[in-house]
Each structure stands twice: as C-alpha cells, then as structure tokens.
C-alpha cells in the first residue's frame, strides 16, 4: 500500500513540477514580437525567444554556419548595432577583443529578446534556398555515402568549386541545418554531389544516410570563402584527408576543364585502401593531364597497397618542392590542417595563400 502511495505521489509531484515549469516558461520566456533590421534596409518581425541564427533562417535570410549552432565555428558572426548585448563565454573564445568591441556577435548564441539591428555582408543576401530530390545515394566506404541531389526549384545553382551548402535536417519541416561541401563540378548546374560521413548519433549524417531515392531535400547556399582562386598562374597544392576530399574533388574537376592548366599537386590521405574512395577518378584525370601530380597515401598498413604510406604531412614534406610560387587548399580534420599548414609554411607558402576548411 505504501509503495502505491509513494508511486502515485512521486508521479503527481513530477507532473506538477513539469506543468509549473511549462507554465513559468510561457510567462517568463515570452519575449513578444521583435523587429529585426538588416543593414538598415530590410526588416522583418518574428517571435522572440529563439537564437538569431534560427530566426534569420526561418525568415529566409541565410548566413553561413558550419557547426550547427554550437558556437564553435564562428562562421555565423554578425555585427549588432544595438548597445549592451552581453558576450557569452563561447563568443569570448571565438572573437578578439577588438571584434567584441566592434560589436561582433555569434548569431547562434544571441537570443532574440528585443528589436535588433544587425549588419551582415551583402553577399549573404544572395544566398537562397533550393529544393531538390535525392537522385542517388551510393555507399563508397564503410561510413561515407555519395549523395547526388537533382535540383527542382530553382533548377540550377551557381557555385565556386570548394563552397558548401547547408542541408535542412528533417525535410521541409526541419529547423536544424548541417553544412556539407559540394563534391561535384560546378559546370553540372542542375545537380550537386555531397559526400556524407556517418557520425554515430550525428543528427545530420544519420538523416541524410537514411534518405531514399526520390525523397525531397532542402538546402541553402552556396556558402564559404574556401574556393579555387583563378586570378594567377601559381601552382595549386590540394590536400585532402578522408571525407575532406569533397571540396577538393570539386576543385580538381573544375580545374581539369580549364584550357591552360596550372600545375596541380593533389595529396590525398586516408586510413586504408577501402577508405580511399574516388581514387580511380584522379588516376584517370592524371593520365589525361600531365599537369596533375597525384600523391595518394595510406596511414595504415595494407598489403595490397603499392603506393606511399604515412601521414599526409610527411608525404608533403617528402614530395613538395620548396620555394615555388604556390597556393594551397586544405580540407580535413583540424589536426591534419594544423600539421599540413606547418609543413607548407616551412616550404615557403605564405599563410595568406593557404586556404582551408576545418571540420
């Protein structure tokens, strides 16, 4: 009897507390309707209480964000013209003191509570939302899938090789976004290819891996200042680690169409032979174009592999000629980017000509 009484009481108490919290949340966290003004020009109203990033997305203003609103990538920065917007701990890690003084804030960390006036670069206003359908989804390694999306509305996209899109997780009703780089040639304007690595319990990758052919998919883009520069005749050094190959592949494909090809050195590092997807494509491009120098390397022992072994920065150390006029494009895990950047600067490539995409 006592047990039943205790159980009933415990449940009733928990229910009461939950209802109390919901009730208080309604009253306390009700920020009413807030007006957001962008670049002193465009404005819209929205219900307060959500992050500025989400509010902007819901109103079809797209700004870059790669980490999914966790406050770690720093891409979603906006300049806030209001006074007295507090600085969160994650913002003080991302921004320098001058930037905070100049009122830069992360829109994913800033909650809309009052009317806000913000400034964003005008090119963000040209980013738009696309609707597409999944054309094919092909596993290329044990955890990476090649996703091809056919564009429906609008039916073409213009992007620079190396840029990325933000896929809306959960279809039309979804409110979360995850960033993926285009792996396809920008010339194929009516479809794009993404390479998605399955992260255990990852919101974005598990959604995309589970998509069936023909299903609708929504994304916005293109984003990012990681793209192939075409204003010089410098040598191009591309370095890809694992699924970081995606934007690099786009760069190589775009490069292979150019008439007077600059020299391109491609360093592609992976763990095992099975993880070295799209290897054949680069071998084939290399056979057709003398200017492509392709250096794949595996970090783990593999009896079938006849090529180089070792971490990719050691391969670069060994193969790259020092002192040449070059620019570098790196994409891969942060630890690889850091190690490769060190080698490249030692080889005489200045930091401002090393472009990278860390994930």
């Amino acid at each position, binding site marked *: 009897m006592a047990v039943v009484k205790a159980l009933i009481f415990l449940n009733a108490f928990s229910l009461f*507390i939950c209802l109390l919290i919901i009730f208080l949340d309604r009253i*306390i966290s009700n920020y009413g309707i807030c007006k957001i003004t962008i670049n002193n020009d465009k404005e819209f109203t929205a219900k307060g209480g959500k992050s500025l990033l989400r509010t902007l997305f819901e109103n079809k203003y797209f700004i870059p964000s790669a980490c999914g609103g966790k406050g770690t990538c720093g891409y979603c920065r906006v300049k806030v013209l209001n006074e007295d917007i507090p600085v969160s701990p994650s913002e003080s890690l991302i921004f320098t003191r001058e930037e905070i003084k100049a009122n830069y804030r992360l829109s994913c960390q800033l909650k809309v509570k009052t009317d806000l006036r913000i400034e964003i670069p005008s090119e963000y206003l040209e980013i738009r939302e696309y609707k597409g359908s999944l054309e094919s989804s092909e596993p290329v390694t044990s955890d990476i899938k090649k996703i091809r999306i056919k564009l429906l509305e609008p039916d073409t996209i213009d992007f620079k090789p190396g840029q990325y899109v933000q896929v809306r997780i959960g279809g039309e009703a979804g409110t979360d976004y995850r960033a993926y780089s285009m792996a396809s040639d920008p010339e194929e304007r009516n479809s794009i290819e993404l390479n998605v690595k399955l992260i255990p319990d990852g919101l974005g990758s598990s959604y995309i891996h589970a998509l069936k052919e023909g299903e609708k998919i929504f994304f916005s883009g293109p984003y990012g200042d990681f793209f192939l520069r075409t204003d010089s005749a410098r040598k191009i050094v591309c370095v890809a680690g694992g699924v970081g190959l995606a934007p690099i592949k786009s760069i190589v494909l775009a490069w292979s169409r150019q008439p007077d090809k600059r020299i391109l050195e491609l360093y592609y590092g992976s763990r095992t032979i099975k993880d070295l997807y799209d290897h054949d494509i680069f071998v084939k491009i290399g056979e057709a174009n003398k200017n492509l120098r392709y250096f794949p390397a595996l970090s783990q022992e593999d009896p079938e592999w006849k090529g180089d072994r070792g971490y990719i920065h050691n391969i670069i150390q060994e193969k790259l000629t020092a002192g040449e006029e070059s620019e570098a494009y790196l994409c891969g895990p942060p630890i690889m980017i850091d190690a490769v950047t060190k080698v490249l600067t030692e080889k005489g490539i200045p930091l401002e000509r090393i472009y990278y995409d860390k994930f």
Partner: protein
Amino acid sequence: MKELFLLLFASIVTSNIALTYFLGMCPFLAISKEIKVATGMGAAVTVVMTFTSLANWLINNLILLPAKLEFLQFLIFIITIAAMVQVLEMFLDRYSPTLYSAFGIFLPLITVNCAILGVSLFMVLRSYSLIETIFYSFGSGLGWTVAIVAIGGLRKGLIFSDPPKNFGAAGITAILAGLMALAFIGFTGVVRG
C-alpha cells in the same frame, strides 16, 4: 537570535560544507582555476542553495512528513533542485541578461552539485526550523564560496611553484584542499566561546 548567528558562522567556517564534509568537490576542483570564475560559481551556488533548501523544507514539513512519505526525500529533493535551477535560469535570462551571461554554464551545472542536496538532507537530519534552515543554507553557500575562492587564489600561486609531476593539477589541488580543511578546523574553539 544569537544561536542563529552562531549557526550562520559555524556553517561558513567551522562546519564548512566544502572543507569539513567535502561536498561539491567536482566544481570545487574543476572551476577553481580563476578567482573571478570561482566567485561566479560561488554566488550561483549560494543563491540556489538558499532557495532550494527553503523549498525543500516546506515540501518536507508540509507534505512529506504528514503523509509519512519521508523516505522519498532523496528523489523529491533532487527534482526540486533541478526545477529550481531551471526556473532560476529562465528568470535570469529574461530579467538580468548580464547576470545570466556571467553565470553562463555554471547555473545548469549546479543541478548535479552534491553540496546542494547535502544541505537539504542535513537540514532534515538536524531537524532545523524554517528560520534556522534559511540561516544554515545561506551560510553554507557563503562557506562554499569562501572555500572555492580561497583555493582559487592558492591555485594561482601554483603556476609559479613546481609540484612533483605525478601529482598533476588535480592531485596537488586535493592536497591543498586537505591543508585548507585543517586550517578551517582551527576555528572550532572560536564558536564555543
């Protein structure tokens, strides 16, 4: 009245919740690297401690004891603490954004701070009255703050010292906490006088 202030003094100094009962050790060791951060955590703990033990006293004396359900104290107290922290967070977010961003991550962390639950349980064990509970919990919060700020100050000095490598940062801090506990026990006679 005198007893109340003695209780307050005792809970700050002689029976300090951190240094004589060693409760709330995770934040005590983890976020005492800087005095400023430690002060923020201490303030948050003091506020939450006072409000939760007040709420828990009311629930315990008005509901649990009359209904003979005092064996549910652990569960009910934990739920109250979690709810209280949640409400406090909403409240600060709405009405004091600067304080909210100053507390930052510390506020939700307090939910799992065992010193908070400890104070609620001690108050039952020692059968404190409502007014005694307020003095005791506020004092315990202050005491915890004093302890974490003091160790924060000591740890700053550690940067310039050279402890044996195997102690690591946490090991040497635990030893420091032990020495501080010894020092705090030295206050014992003061209260009796």
